[in-house]
């Protein structure tokens, strides 16, 4: 089980991020990105701190956090694997790749393996359409996925 920081700690670390970004025009998204980078997700306890600092309602902050696919309500696995499922990758068999990967990892999309090693997510285009099917593992791009590369990915996330 991942240890969750205590709420007072979340409050103080959140406040520090807000302090750093508050001067920006339209600071909410940069603040949320900063918080997610700090905690690996956007903790619930951070929301009232942001609302207070930006003088907006908690509902508004929640509305923004829940609107965007990127913000997580829970920490992800140690690795995050994003598999492109958009048209270009579809034309090169990304459906079969997804099915195989789900089977190898024993999880579906938006799920994390029980050992917490990897979270699998669909993504709609990585801009690697000239080397489909494509994926992104912890921010590193991988093109022309095939069985061999899938095995390498699975070995890497399990190590």
């Amino acid at each position, binding site marked *: 089980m991942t240890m969750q920081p205590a709420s007072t700690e979340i409050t103080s670390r959140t406040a520090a991020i807000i302090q750093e970004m508050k001067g920006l025009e339209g600071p909410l*998204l940069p603040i949320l990105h900063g918080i997610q980078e700090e905690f690996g997700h956007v903790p619930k306890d951070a929301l009232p701190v942001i609302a207070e600092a930006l003088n907006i309602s908690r509902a508004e902050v929640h509305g*923004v956090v829940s609107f965007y696919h990127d913000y997580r309500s829970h920490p992800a696995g140690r690795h995050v694997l994003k598999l492109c499922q958009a048209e270009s990758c579809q*034309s090169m068999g990304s459906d079969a790749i997804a099915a195989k990967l789900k089977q190898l990892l024993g999880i579906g999309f938006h799920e994390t393996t029980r050992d917490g090693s990897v979270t699998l997510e669909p993504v709609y*285009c990585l801009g690697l359409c*000239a*080397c489909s099917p494509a994926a992104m593992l912890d921010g590193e791009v*991988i093109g022309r996925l095939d069985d061999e590369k899938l095995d390498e990915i699975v070995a890497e996330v399990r190590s």
Partner: protein
Amino acid sequence: MIPRIYIPADSGALALGAEKVAKAIAGELAERGIEAKIVRNGSRGAYFLEPMVEVATANGRIAYGPVKPSDVKSLFDSGFLTGGHHKRWLGTPDKIPFLAKQTRLTFARCGVTDPLSLESYKKHGGLNGLTNALALTPAATVAQVTESGLRGRGGAGFPTGIKWKTVLDTAGDRKYIVCNADEGDSGTFADRMIMEGDPFVLIEGMTIAGIATGATKGFVYVRSEYPHAVAVMNKAVEIARKAGVLGASVLGSPYAFDMEIRVGAGAYVCGEETALLDSLEGKRGMVRAKPPLPAHKGLFGKPTVINNVISLASVPVIMDKGAAYYKDFGMGRSRGTIPIQIAGNVKYAGLFEAAFGMTLGEIVDEIGGGTATGRPVKAVQVGGPLGAYFPRALFDTPFDYEAFAAKDGLIGHAGVVVFDDTADMLKQARFAMEFCAIESCGKCTPCRIGSTRGVETIDRIVAGIEPEKNLALVTDLCNTMKFGSLCALGGFTPYPVMSSITHFPDDFKPAPVRVAAE
């Protein structure tokens, strides 16, 4: 002279192993005690040759590709630093047919120069456009851009100069230039390539836009799926600021302009300009009703130019070589060049910049070389997830805004995704609806509810429940979405759906019939 080796750091090249190649080359240099400079350039866009390594020789640049780490030792043994022969030898890059056939205006430097060297940028014609613009009145610069015939490369095709003129003519204590780099359309990667391979051209284009319209602040809204592009843009802005290209006095002129790079958060709809503005303001990416136009009331309610990356990156060459030069390329009302992105199941995938007017058939069959799988081409989706699927019968359509519209399609951001004959067009139509349902901002009913009902109705066709009646229902629903949606997400989702139904009716027949027909 110390040898120079160019190894792309473009995401596409990295996805194909460029980093491992770079490490292997650096290792080999160290081992052999050879001193050389490794330049991490962008990609020239011939992805079937990536990672494409180039060396600067006495006879100009010589390319090798696609290079695998295991090739590196033998490359050195073959004397590749002086252009020696090797099985990966490609010769002069400009003479590689895929590159030789192109007209590179916007992408002239991409893959050639060091993306983060302002010196290299200037040496290749960079900042000439901005220097010329600084010598003109803002109105004269706007007139040049209008005269060039440049239209919005994000997809809508609205004349860029007209947009700029509206902002110039609108009074405001503060105005903004917003660059839409939320390139979410599948099959497109031109924005990513230019941001990673020639970031200064975008900075220059935005600065010209700022000076021409009276805006002093720019934002580039880059999607979070592009971490490499974000990193390069941030570094480039920093360099431009230090060099006085950005700041209180642009190149020593009385004009001020500065910019920031902002990162999206994974919402496709934020590629829609008004949703993008809301997102920049720190709100949910909800589409705004127009009017007011962003040119009148845009970011934070101020007059705002919002342009696509490629539109802005095409401005420097227009201001450098003149409106007439740019306008001379193209056909009809589509002037200049367009970076066509050939993707999906295609043999020679990559970016191909050319004047408007090539036919779809030339692009797919001649340039793209047909499918990667070697099977017949069944359909081509042009313009991203909201673009129509074209059958071979429409391959004579020239690449032109109006010509595509006349065939119930759109150019969009000029992505071309090729599918072979194993594609199931009903599945593709269903995906279009499903994608719209996932990504709808939820503001208007036709898009929010229509897309979900669309998926359900198509599922009933799959299940063989009153297929004809349900097909008629999908058609009716598409009509409602097309005319009743607030923006292109709901409004254009009918394109892939209806084109699939119209051009590939066999795929929509009930299951038993479909099986029997095979």
